[in-house]
């Protein structure tokens, strides 16, 4: 039967998988918004390729969540038929593309985290997660290299590109702390060796960022007030608009397929 909304049969593992799948899906969707608008043909392909990898990673995590949930849902149901408050992605990934510097700074922040996170997950006690991570970590390392090279080019470029890169880093910095906070319901997964404790990734992430920003002649921002709420479903105004576009077809024509 066709429906416009699903209720997920939640367990800590299902919630954990959906949050991480949501990160990848929402950032993948954001990057896809550059299609037809990127600054050069090569960058058009790069952003579309990174988006494709992220959406592929999201599909794998959603498919596994569907197996674990065993409620007859599939990856499309999770993407298209959940309301905004049911999404547990980081606030960082839903932030608008802004100028190219904002897109690149967002990508560096997220990829530097995801690079560490997938590598840690590759040692998961859960064999499905370990296998997914072994594949995704190579792609993510590639994304990080590309985004970091751009941030360095922008920061160490003209006065204009430097100013825009510096402004982008400052503007997105308050969204970075949320990456390192585990939800209380993840403690048992961490304990069982299924999920990495994101708090342990904070120092290596900061070290990677310090190296990239130094190369880019950009300052590492001071740790000040930090935004959070995405993991709990309290999103910025931007996610609702993104979902309105992404989910429009399934909401308007439930069960539509082609």
């Amino acid at each position, binding site marked *: 039967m066709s429906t416009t909304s699903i209720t997920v049969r939640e367990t800590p593992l299902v919630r954990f998988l959906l949050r991480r799948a949501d990160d990848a899906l929402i950032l993948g969707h954001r990057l896809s918004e550059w299609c037809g608008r990127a600054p050069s043909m090569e960058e058009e*392909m790069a952003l579309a390729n*990174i988006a494709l990898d992220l959406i*592929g990673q999201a599909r*794998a995590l959603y498919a596994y969540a569907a197996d674990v949930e065993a409620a007859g849902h599939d990856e499309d149901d999770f993407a298209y038929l959940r309301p905004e408050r049911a999404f547990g992605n980081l606030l960082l990934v839903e932030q608008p593309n802004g100028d190219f510097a904002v897109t690149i700074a967002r990508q560096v922040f997220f990829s530097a985290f995801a690079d560490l996170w997938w590598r840690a997950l590759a040692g998961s006690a859960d064999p499905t997660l370990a296998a997914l991570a*072994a*594949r995704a970590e190579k792609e993510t390392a*590639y994304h990080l*290299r590309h985004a*970091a090279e751009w941030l360095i080019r922008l920061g160490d470029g003209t006065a204009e590109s430097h100013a825009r890169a510096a402004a982008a880093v400052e503007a997105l910095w308050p969204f970075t702390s949320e990456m390192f906070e585990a939800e209380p319901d993840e403690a048992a997964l961490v304990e069982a060796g299924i999920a990495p404790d994101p708090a342990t990734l904070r120092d290596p992430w900061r070290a990677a960022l310090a190296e990239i920003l130094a190369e880019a002649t950009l300052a590492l921002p001071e740790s000040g007030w930090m935004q959070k709420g995405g993991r709990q479903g309290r999103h910025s105004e931007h996610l609702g608009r993104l979902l309105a576009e992404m989910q429009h077809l399934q909401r308007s024509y439930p069960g539509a397929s082609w």
Partner: protein
Amino acid sequence: MVSAPEPSLARLRRVAGAVPDPELPVLTIADLGILRDVRIVGGTAEIDITPTYSGCPAMAEIAAGIIRAVEAAGFGRPRVNTVLSPAWTTDFMTAAARRALREYGIAPPPEAAARRPRFAALPLPCPRCGSAETEELAPFGATACKALWRCRACREPFEHFKCH
């Protein structure tokens, strides 16, 4: 006189493994290391494949290609399973596959897909003239598995199958 019939499991492996990659028709799924196992269970052919890049849109086409080829070979409709572990890397590509890629004009991934330092250059010989004087034009290409390079010696652009 006819030759002895090939055992059906070996024939199934050959038929399934010969399915070409839709984006790299010079390679088969056996060359790429995508074919993991074949079985005949209760009269039904079962084929295990492993996904390559997370976002590779060719996987659905590969599964459809396997079903077409196996049915055409008289095995009936097969079941195609996805196996995740161990995760595919370019290390699963055979030596023959690397040679075929090079002859096709695509620089194959270096062997042993180890992590390289973030900003280290990748030495990659030109697949046409063999020169080491090559440079990356763009790290992402027309498909999820390729990057764009050029040779400074023979001046030819070429594609590189990413090392993943």
